[in-house]
């Protein structure tokens, strides 16, 4: 179903709309977690849902993340479609065993007999001046686990489309929400239909492929606008699985690639992007795929986070270092 946005709306509002529409369309859908009821969630993503759909379908749980995910698994075994919220990135860690050993593996364990259409919403990333544990980019911890889908939207309209697709998906989906973009506005209409595992070219370009996702999509587009070469920006949307076709088609055309994310670089998601793009496009590449990432440090305190987060300048620097004059340089690893 499709809702048309009359006026500009925020990503937070688009997510709220997606939940409301899913709840309205499919009575098997449930929304629960910490403070998602009366309060509407600390980011208000579930605002008004409990009042509209009732306490049986939208409710607060006791304060225990393994409990939230573990009971969601049991509910899905019994035919429901839970959409649960982890309040912040670092607070999904207590649920790691339930996610890794059960949510990801029960379908395979049971030869497909147990299907777990569970969505775990995780507000992630920094840039909001949060104190420690409130700004982690934790996608790498989940991307490596077979059986999980991991997705993250970069724009308000896609937040709606992607969340609807995640809720409709028969596989468990870790849905990462770029919290610093919750208040970003757009008047693009809210539509559905983009496949859950498809990357999208947000800006066509001929000289270099800039690969981003979640909070970095907006930063990438801004950098592309300022670059003095013609930058193609790809919004991955789906981190697992990876859309090889869309990305590699682009890189084979441009011959150069940069991947950007907030998480530390060391075995961050960019490592997989660089490795597989190189595997598939090696003879087209004029320079190694550049990674623009957070440093290999714990997330900084609020007053220092600006120094950690990838920004337009760092992206432009990386593009410049792509050996346009074909001299050898070694980017910092």
């Amino acid at each position, binding site marked *: 179903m499709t809702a048309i946005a009359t006026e500009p709306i925020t990503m937070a509002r688009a997510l709220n709309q997606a939940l409301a529409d899913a709840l309205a369309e499919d009575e098997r859908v*449930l929304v629960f977690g910490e403070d998602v009821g009366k309060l509407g969630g600390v980011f208000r993503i579930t605002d008004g849902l409990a009042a509209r759909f009732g306490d*049986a379908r939208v409710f607060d*749980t*006791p304060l*225990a993340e*393994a*409990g939230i*995910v*573990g*009971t*969601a*698994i*049991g*509910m*899905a*075994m*019994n*035919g*429901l479609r839970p959409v649960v919220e982890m309040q912040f990135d670092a607070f999904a860690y*207590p649920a790691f*065993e*339930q996610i890794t*050993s*059960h949510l990801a593996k*029960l*379908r*395979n*364990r*049971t*030869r*497909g*007999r*147990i*299907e777990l259409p569970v969505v775990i919403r995780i507000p992630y990333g920094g840039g909001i001046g949060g104190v420690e544990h409130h700004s982690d980019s934790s996608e790498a911890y989940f991307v490596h686990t*077979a*059986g999980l*889908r991991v997705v993250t939207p970069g724009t308000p309209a896609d937040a709606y489309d992607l969340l609807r697709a995640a809720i409709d*998906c*028969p*596989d468990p989906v870790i849905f990462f929400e770029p919290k610093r973009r919750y208040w970003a506005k757009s008047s693009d209409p809210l539509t559905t239909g983009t496949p859950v*595992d498809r990357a999208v070219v947000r800006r066509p370009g001929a000289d270099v492929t800039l690969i981003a996702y979640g909070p970095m999509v907006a930063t990438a587009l801004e950098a592309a606008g300022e670059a003095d070469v013609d930058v193609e920006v790809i919004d991955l949307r789906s981190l697992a*699985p*990876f859309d*090889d*076709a869309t990305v590699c088609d682009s890189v084979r055309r441009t011959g150069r690639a940069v991947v950007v994310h907030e998480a530390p670089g060391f075995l961050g998601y960019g490592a997989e992007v660089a490795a597989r793009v190189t595997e598939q496009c090696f003879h087209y590449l004029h320079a190694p795929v550049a990674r623009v990432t957070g440093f290999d440090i714990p997330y900084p305190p609020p007053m220092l986070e600006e120094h950690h987060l990838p920004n337009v300048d760092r992206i432009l620097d990386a593009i410049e270092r792509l050996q346009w004059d074909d001299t050898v340089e070694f980017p910092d690893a």
Partner: protein
Amino acid sequence: MSTVATPRQQFSRDLLPSDEPLQLIAPSGEAAPGAHLPPDDVLVDLYRRMVLGRRFDAQATALTKQGRLAVYPSSHGQEACEVGAVAALRPQDWLFPTYRDSMAIVARGVDPVDTLGLLRGDWHLGYDPYVHHVAPQCTPLATNTLHAVGLGHAARLKGEDTVALVMLGDGGTSEGDTHEALNFAGVWKAPVVFLVQNNGYAISVPLAKQNAAPSLAHKGIGYGVASMLIDGNDPAMVYAAVQSAVAAARAGEGPTLIEAITYRIEAHTNADDASRYRDQDEVLQWLARDPIDRLERYLIARGLLDASARDHVAVEAEAAASSLRERMNADPKLDPAELFEHVYAEPTAALRRQAATLSGELAQ
């Protein structure tokens, strides 16, 4: 060491358990005067299924020695819990077993060969969970307690009359998930029965190093969950306790925590060496409290079981065992391509490429 269950205790919804484990039939085989026993036909059936269960367990152990199973955790000595609990469930109820509970799964009606799928190792599970309402055997300890609570709560939301019984061990009660499950169940009044089989050990670790509470059942009150402490080698008591807990759950009275005191007669698994951490005397003492002997004495004394009936059950057990042996001796047929089939509803492009690589290798 145990006390006779008064009717009040037997159907108790108290948050605190009795001081001593409740019992309906003493090890001697005598029923306590005035005890509310299950009907005779139920007791006879419990006896039969325990004998079948023990024979199945012995066969599985033998098959492991012959290399037919990767590993086998025996429930020898725990037959009263394995069989008594399952016998109290209705078809629409769900069983959430652990690696230890193969006997319970067979008692639930799953084909023994299918039951042993996980431990045989041709796949992670040999049966369809939805046919007999039996969840996969759970290895990560206590994690399935939360699945049981979720499934039970979902049933209530859907207006279904379903109760979930989850089994765990004394060691499993130390995991955080057990606490979260009891808490969610208490707050939601979920139709769940937690059956803790306290068999004295977590591999080599004795209960005293696991917990300092008067009993594991004393955890219930911290969650507002009704709790019972029972003699886990008394099949009548296990059946009665689970049955009343299931009835209470159906009536909307919420979850029950049952601690059943029993003993693991064999080592943790065939791979374990129990002589490193416990005396054989202890094992002998528990063999003297054997759950099958206990019920057998009772049934014989009550004239509910005679030699021929007993032989009949023994013959049935032998037949089942030899059928199991035969069927397990046939090598399972394996399809490596299946490794890629069930990871997602539809294999991803990358998985299809990897499947092709493997089949290419195998074709050479």
